[in-house]
């Protein structure tokens, strides 16, 4: 049976009147890539800061590697690597020196540290920039340096708090591939983001957080199965009579059909060949149409159905 790496029980954190975490519970197993997904202000970073013993909390308990987490539990801290949302490196030190400095806070042995620093540089692909100062690096490279500083000491638990915010697609892919690689090497990963695509891409299990509450937890498929919607079909058409819309609504497994702004959006719950049946209706009524596409539900649909709100504003 897999060991529990992180166990959070009934965590309550208040900022005066605001409840940031409301009886928040979580259990993360070894070698998981665990995603914390939620809109901005949902409590993801607060949960991470409580987990790291940076923030006080009103109620609840936190265990990491089976030990109660505390600011002076240096044994546990030595096994954690943290990459925060904001880049935190020293501008007056070179890339190599930065990684060596932060690694040195965890690893005393100089020879071992040199090896770890070298491996971290290779891991994030900064070999050509070791003598560069952070100010000379692009945003993506800077993020990679930030990550190298957090993982050089080869932690067993890696916490990444929105590491891809404001990162170019190439660096984002590099970062996501790196996280998957670290996981393959045996690290447990906690990944917070409001980018559902990223979470869906790399996380083995996901907790959706809203207003400090853990509203759903499971694998991507498990989360998607929790909701009514199984397929959303979109059809572009210039003119659609009401009787045709009624015919569509009466089809089996279709529970919602909305026509607005020359676009028909049909939501299905289960069933097979829903798209074919829909197109049959349109053809029979001699309705001409343009683009047609079918989508599986996203985590945004999961969030939308559970909370009635969008996970994030469209970007």
């Amino acid at each position, binding site marked *: 049976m897999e060991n529990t790496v992180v166990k959070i029980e009934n965590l309550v954190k208040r*900022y005066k009147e605001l409840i940031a975490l409301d009886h928040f519970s979580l259990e993360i197993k070894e070698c998981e890539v665990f995603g914390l997904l939620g809109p901005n202000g949902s409590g993801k970073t607060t949960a991470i800061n409580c987990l790291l013993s940076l923030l006080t909390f009103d109620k609840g308990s936190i265990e990491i590697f089976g030990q109660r987490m505390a600011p*002076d539990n240096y044994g546990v801290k030595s096994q954690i690597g943290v990459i925060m949302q904001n*880049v935190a490196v020293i501008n007056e030190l070179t890339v190599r020196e930065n990684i060596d400095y932060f690694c040195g806070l965890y690893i005393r042995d100089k020879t071992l540290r040199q090896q770890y620093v070298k491996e971290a540089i290779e891991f994030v692909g900064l070999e050509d920039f070791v003598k560069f100062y952070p100010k000379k690096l692009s945003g993506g490279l800077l993020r990679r340096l930030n990550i190298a500083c957090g993982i050089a000491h080869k932690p067993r638990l890696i916490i990444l708090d929105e590491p891809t915010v404001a990162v170019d697609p190439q660096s984002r892919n590099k970062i996501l591939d790196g996280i998957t690689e670290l996981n393959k090497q045996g690290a447990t990963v906690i990944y917070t983001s409001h980018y559902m695509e990223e979470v869906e891409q790399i996380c083995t299990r996901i907790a959706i957080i809203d207003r400090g509450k853990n509203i759903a937890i499971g694998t991507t498929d498990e989360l998607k199965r929790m909701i009514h919607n199984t397929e959303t079909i979109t059809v572009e058409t210039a003119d659609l009579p009401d009787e045709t819309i009624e015919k569509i609504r009466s089809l089996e497994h279709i529970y919602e059909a909305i026509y607005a702004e020359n676009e028909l959006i049909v939501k299905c719950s289960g069933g097979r060949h829903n798209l074919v049946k829909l197109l049959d209706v349109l053809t029979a009524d001699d309705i001409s149409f343009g683009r047609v596409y079918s989508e599986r539900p996203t985590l945004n649909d999961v969030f939308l159905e559970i909370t009635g709100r969008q996970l994030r504003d469209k970007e």
Partner: protein
Amino acid sequence: MLHELKYSFLSTVREKSAVFWLMLFPLLLSTMFYFAFSNLFASMNGFSQIPVAVVEVQKNEIFGKVMDTLSEGEDAMFKTTYTDGENAMKLLEEGEIDGIIYTDGTLSLKVKTNGLSQSIIESFLTQYNTQEAVIKETVQNNPQKLEAVIAAFSKEIDAVETKPLTNGTMDIFVGFFHALIGMVALMGSTLGFNVSANNQANLSQMGVRKAVSPTSKLKRVIGSMLSTFIIHCVCVAVTITYMLLVLRIDMGDKIPMIYLSGFIGALTGVSIGYFIGALPRISLNGKLGICIGFTLVTSFFSGLYVADIKGILSVYAPIVNEINPATLITDLFYCLMLYDDYTRYMQKFITLLIISVIFTLAGVLLTRRKKYASL
């Protein structure tokens, strides 16, 4: 801790703004002081030669010898012109000379206006008349001692000479440089502030990153403070060395103690900065502003901008001088220059040490928290 010390040292010495403000700025300011004040004080304190004309109505050989002696060398008292009465009057009218001495049996003086130079000439003539017999006897019996007699004689008539209470001497000019060293020492508060900010999770992302590491805050802070202190000592030492060797400011001969005074000042500056950095509920920029403001205000009260301010405070609010770190630092230099024993020096030194310890401990107490209500 050595790891922290090494990288804290590297990052601080590479910080251009720190290097400028703590290393170059004091050199620029001291150079500026040097050129601004040296001219001013030369005109105030420099004993410039007094131009006089001697009209020998009747030949006075002994007086002539005395005048010649007093008109020779770098520190000559008079610039003497031997001429006739008419030309002498012309020179006096044109302001080329300050007085005319007539040797007509007795010595008489003619001046156009009253002033310090005229008073000195008059005083000289009075002294000469009184001492004439001694001088005559010396010329006749011990001519080789004439110079020594005239030197002693001229010293008596030096109306502006300072009579020190001790063996030490100093002037107001040097005081500005002492105050400047005090300011440089306290400017180290910005370095101490950085130590606080970079090690507290509620103040910076760097603080967060360090706080989640297994290296204790105490080790990190000690390492950073130590490197900061060393760097700041170097900055203060460079300033002092520049003043001593390049600007040739006379700060006395207790050179090692001069540097020690700068170093205790540096410790006080760094400690105060660490404390300010640890103050709660003030933004980082706000704290930096407090550091700079504190340095400027305390330096003002130590006499950096107005030399007399310390004296005024000693009358109306002596406690300010007793606790103002900038004043205490400048007082260390005064003590070294003015007193032979170290009693007063040690009093000031220990006071600065106590201030440093108090501020460091207060900073540690304020930052002892390891978890925060908010970040």
